[in-house]
């Protein structure tokens, strides 16, 4: 049997985390979450997930700072990141895309199904060739 794919969610809104984690769990993923950027980075280092879901406005370390660290560390660089936020200015979007995120989703514009779909699609695309 294939091992479950690990996903780390960095998001400070617990109601959002609960719904997303539950939906991803139903889709056969193992989900870990943190409510601030610092704890989140430690969690990422520890779990080495297959995908990271990242909010931008986060306590202690913002999504931008977290993304910069991910992009600069050898062990973490390759992990695909999906940004999930309510910011949507082209400035924020471009800055994140330059840092190498795979998808930029605006929470208010997507249903839960669509978000899960995007995450699975990103996982599928970045599967290592064995």
């Amino acid at each position, binding site marked *: 049997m294939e091992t479950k794919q690990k996903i780390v969610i960095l998001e400070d*809104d617990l109601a*959002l985390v609960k719904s*997303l984690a539950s*939906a991803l769990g139903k889709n056969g993923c193992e989900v870990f979450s943190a409510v601030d950027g610092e704890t989140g980075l430690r969690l990422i280092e520890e779990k080495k997930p297959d995908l990271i879901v990242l909010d931008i406005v986060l306590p202690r370390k913002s999504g931008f700072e977290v993304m910069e660290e991910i992009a600069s560390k050898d062990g973490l660089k390759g992990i695909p990141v999906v940004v999930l936020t*309510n910011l949507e200015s082209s400035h924020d979007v471009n800055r994140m895309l330059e840092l190498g995120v795979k998808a930029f989703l605006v929470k*208010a514009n997507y*249903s*839960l*199904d669509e*978000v899960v779909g995007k995450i699975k699609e990103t996982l599928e695309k970045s599967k290592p060739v064995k």
Partner: protein
Amino acid sequence: MKKDGFLDSLNIKKRCESSGVGLWQCPHFLFVVMGFVNIFAILTTNVVARRFAEPEIAALIVLLVSAFLFIIGHTVTRSFEHIVEASRLKSEFVSIVSHELRSPLSAIKWNLDLVNSPDSKGSFSSELLSSLTLIDEENEKMLRLVNTLLEVSRADDKRIDFSPKNFSLSEISFKAVKSLSSFAKASNVGIAFTPDKDLDTVFADPKKIQVVIENLIDNAVRYSPGGSSVDISVSAKNGDVLWRIADHGSGIPKEEQASVFDKFFRANNVFRYRSGGLGVGLYLAKSFVEGSGGRIGFESSEGKGTAFWFTLPAKKAVIKS
């Protein structure tokens, strides 16, 4: 300070841009202008005073006049500064509130999605299900309102993001007509649409233009008497594409025509209490159309009806490299 301000005039331009007002409404710029007026007035006073009085008295008059002008200028620009700052804070407030409101609204939406998913739905009574559907719809409505407010605050600061491309104006119009057809039916108003299939490709942001068209149709239907119809047409005009909607409603009173595109405008006639919504539809429509390089306007005569129109630049040729 005036000298610094003059040498640093580029910086003043930047400061004025950041406060989001025009040059002649910008306190920093006006302060510099006041300075020049001051110098000019003093020189004139000096010449005039020397002609009629002793040099000491002339000097005193010059000093007094210059102090007076300086104080007046300072007071006026200071109070201007306060107003500009207050307006900037207000639109920042709208933007922050809208962002903060979107988080819980998204959380509610996603948890409802979870509850409404096929595998948990089966265990609910039909009463619970219909309540859930209502909650979902109302939540969506709230999200739309907050999104509209956000667009308004962006339009205020001229920060709207456009992603323009070539698209068919008729196709978008059909979509808009379709999404409003049940509202039109409920209001007993017919919608007639005359497309021009050959000459209707425009270069603009289709999402924004769809909002413009929906707002204009919604308004036309809302202000039409039952049993009448609204007529939509698309046609070419001087190299641009013209979109037009005419209703047979009661028209917009002459004295109010100037403020139709203002934010939160409501006509002051019988319809004042008949329309819900934020009153920002036409304000946004103007921002979107003008931001796309088009023009928007209307003709209205009381008792006969109103026709709103906008133009958009025709399609851009694709340059192959």
